[in-house]
Structures are given as structure tokens and as C-alpha cells.
């Protein structure tokens, strides 16, 4: 009698611990799902910005690079360049200005050259340059 009672208590303990573990294993992911940790979105590393044939010489194209705008420029010489299109002054979206072959911010008249360097106006830093590669007709823009 005493032996059977001990075995039952032992099994109950094993089952109880297993049950609690199962509950914890289910509850923890649920808890993490309901209250997720504050974390930034991983930065986009690479996107297909455009078809190369779409971008004519001396023109620019704004494309989505993660949650930020990117600017793809084909210089008058036919070279493709890409930049983070966020002005380093007050975060306005910059655009390509074909008449001066420069990158221009309409907000405060900041201008950048085709290497992203500040030419004039209030921007304190150059534009972030992105890497351009061609895969067939696709223009692949990446951060590194």
C-alpha cells in the first residue's frame, strides 16, 4: 500500500511538472507575441531599383529602399549612381535636377554633386552612397 502510494505521488509529480512545463512552453511565445520587444526593422540590404533601360541618361528615379527613399541617377555620361534620397539637412526627399545635373532638395535649396557631396545650401553632410550593380537589365542597389 505504501509502495503504491509513493509511486502514484511520484507519477503525479512527474505529470504536474510536465504539465506546468507544457503550459510555460505555450504561454511564453504567446506572451512574447502579445508584448513584442522594441526593435528596429533590419535595414534593407538590397533591392531591384529599376530596369536599366527605364533610366535615361541625365535623369533620376526615386525608388523604395526599405522604409527610406533611394535615388537612382543615370549621369549624362551614362553611369548609374544610387544614393539614400534623404537630405542630410532636414530629411526631405531629394530629387535629380537635369538642367544642372545635380541632386537637389526643394525644401531649402540644398544641392549635391553626382558623388553625393554637398555643393551648396544647408546640408551638413554628403548623401549616403549606395552600391549599384546590374543583373541583366535589372539595376540592383545595395548598401554594401
Amino acid at each position, binding site marked *: 500500500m505504501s509502495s503504491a502510494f509513493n509511486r*502514484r505521488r511520484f*507519477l503525479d509529480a512527474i*505529470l504536474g511538472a510536465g*504539465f506546468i512545463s*507544457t*503550459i510555460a512552453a*505555450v504561454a511564453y511565445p*504567446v506572451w512574447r*507575441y*502579445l508584448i*513584442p520587444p*522594441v526593435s528596429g*526593422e533590419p535595414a534593407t540590404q538590397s533591392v531591384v531599383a529599376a530596369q536599366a533601360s527605364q533610366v535615361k541618361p541625365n535623369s533620376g528615379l526615386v525608388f*523604395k529602399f*526599405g*522604409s*527610406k*527613399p533611394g535615388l537612382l541617377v543615370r549621369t549624362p555620361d551614362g553611369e548609374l549612381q544610387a544614393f539614400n534620397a*534623404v537630405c542630410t539637412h*532636414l*530629411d*526631405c*526627399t531629394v530629387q535629380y535636377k537635369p538642367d544642372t545635373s545635380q541632386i537637389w532638395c*526643394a*525644401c*531649402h*535649396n540644398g544641392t549635391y554633386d553626382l558623388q553625393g557631396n554637398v555643393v551648396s*545650401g*544647408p546640408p*551638413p553632410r554628403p548623401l549616403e552612397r549606395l552600391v549599384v550593380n546590374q543583373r541583366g537589365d535589372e539595376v540592383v542597389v545595395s548598401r554594401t
Partner: protein
Amino acid sequence: MAAGTTAAVLVLSASPVNAQTTANQCLVCHASLPDAALAAPAKAFPGDVHQQRGFGCVDCHGGNAATPDKSQAHNAARGYRGKPRGPQIIATCARCHSDPELMHKFAPRQRVDQAAEYASSVHGKRLAEGDLGVATCVTCHGAHGVRLVNDARSPAFPTNVAATCGTCHSSAEHMKSYKLPNGSPLPTSQRAEYERSVHYAALAGQRDMSAPTCNDCHGNHGAAPPGVSSLTTVCGTCHTVFQTKFATSVHAQIFEKACIECHSNHAVLAPSDRMLGTAKDTVCASCHEDKDDPGFVGATKMHDSMERLTSAVDSSAALIARVKNDGMEVGDQELALNEARTKLVLARTEVHMFDPAALDAIVNDGTKILAGVDQAGTKALGELAYRRRGLFVSLGVILLVVTALALKIKDLGKEQ
């Protein structure tokens, strides 16, 4: 002809080659003098930019540096001039600094029109009238410890300019004899006001050397107050877009002091949307008090427009941040939010046209973008709530099964 010969002799005497050939007895003697005023120049000169380029005491003071005998060293026959004062200082510096050929040897990029500019300045004009209390070259650059302007120790280095100008212009005692053209006393609060400004914060706080200090608006060698008619041009040197917008506005014809009517001159504070409108603390209200005044109506409209866009941007940004934190993909909405923020910056620029309709057009573009962002954000929240409901239902089912399983096992145990 005589003047030309004199200039040639002076330039030859300024040659650093002559000064290097023998020991500088001026320094030896003056450094040991008990009178601090006479000893200080000898102690300061070794770090001087002129000394580093081979110039000596005699190049400015004349005399003979090769002898320890005072009577020979201070011999007028050897061109000894003593301490230059007033116009003599300008002439002494200009001998080299207005000579393009000489300056080309030492600083090819340096301008050589400083003396001409100085003559056009308020300082230069008053000096020409005999006022020896005005600033000359040495007042701003120093006399015996002169540093290059791009040397942070120079009194003319951008971060030191306000203090340098303030030496005289902040001194009520020094400025008491000077009056404005209308006869009122010249203020001495400029430096204190400037040090409260956004320009000073950028220059001294953020070490932004492109931020303006006194000489960027007043000129340096040609220092003079900007005339009323050129105020927008002076501010527009950096703030080009605002100058262009303002020039088309109705205020361009009305404001006597252009930009500074709203932004002040020396105490240019960080602009804010709160400046706009008809509340008591707004700048518009200082002129537009009457509710029937078109300016009052326009200011109210512009304030409301800006308020509409700023609150919409804040609200949408909060929504998207919440949705993003809940794990939903909002890349497109963040992109649109950036675009709306660009419209907000553009709207703040457009305010300087003082045209409520033009401002409203930009604000409407922004709010239209934000309406799309809000719609997508709300939809994402709905999707999130749906997923959570599904999760709770499935969780309930799992718990039910586990409980049933436990009871079943218990029953089985009893049967055995």
C-alpha cells in the same frame, strides 16, 4: 614716383631674409625689461605667424635689430617708427598685406584688399576723421601674437569673433561717445543677444563653422551695419529659399526691417510654428490685432493649416510606430510618412510667402498622403486584432485538449 620709391624701400625692408641674418636684439632687450607693457611684445612674438615666416620687429617698427645699443636700435635714421598708432597701423600692415606680389610668396590665396575694405568701413571712416578709439587691424588680430585666422587661438577665428567684437561693442564705457544716425545711443547688448541665438548655438555648440557670427552679416574689414534695403540679401546669403519666397510676399513691400521684423537680428531664436497665428505670443499678433484685418484672417488660416498638418503628421507617426512595434510590416507607410514630413518642411518654407492659399495647397498634399497612411495603419491594426483573436481561440482549444487529456489520464489511473 617718390611714393613708389618709398613703397619699394619699405617692402625691401620687410624682407624676412634681412631679419634672419642676425640675432634679434630687440627681443633680447625687451624680454628683460621690468615694464610689462614693453616686455610683453617680446614674449608674445615667438608664436606670431609673422615671426614664423621670418619677419622681425623692425619690419613693423623700423630701427636696427642687430645692435643691443638702444640709441642705435631706436635710430630714426634707420627708419625707427616706434609704436604705430591709428592710421599708422593700417599703413604698416598694408605695406605687405596690400602687396599682391609679396603676399603671393607667403599666402597666395589671401586677399590683398583688406586696407581698401577697411577704408570703406565705419571703423575706417571714423579713423580717417581722427577717431583713434575705433578698431584697427591689431584690435581684432592682435599685434605681437598674431595667429592665422583659421587657428582656433586667433581672436578672428569664427568662435572667437563675437568676443573680439564685444571687447568694444559690449563696453558701455567705450561705446558711450558713439551714436546711431538718429542720435540714439549705440546699443551694447549685441553680443549677449547673439549668444542666445540659434546661430551661436550652431557655431559654438555644434562647432558648425558655417554658422554666422558678427562678420558674416556686417563684413569684417569693411564692417558696417547692413542697410535696411540689403537685409534680405544678407540673410538670404544662407537662407536663399526664404529670401526668394519672402521677396514675392506682401510683407516685402511693408516690412521696414525685412527678416528681422519677425526673427530679430542678433537674437535670432530657433523658429517655431508657434510664431504663426494670432494668439498673444505670436509675431503676427504684434501687427495684426483687429479681427477684420485681412492679415489677422490670413494669419489665422495659415496657423490652422500648419496645425492641421503637424498634428496629422504626429498622429500618423504614432499610429505607424505602434503598428510597427506590434510586428506588422509598414515600410510603405514609413516611406509615405517621410514624404508627408517633406511637405511639412516645404510648408514651413512656404509660410514666408504669407499666402494662405499657397500654403494650403502644400498642406492638403501632405494631409492626403497621411490619410492613406492612416488608412493602411488602421487596416494593419484590424489585421493584428484579427490575428490575436485567432490566437486566443486556438490557445483556448489547446488548453481544453490538455485539460481533457489530464482528466483522462486521471480516470485511467483510477480504473487501474
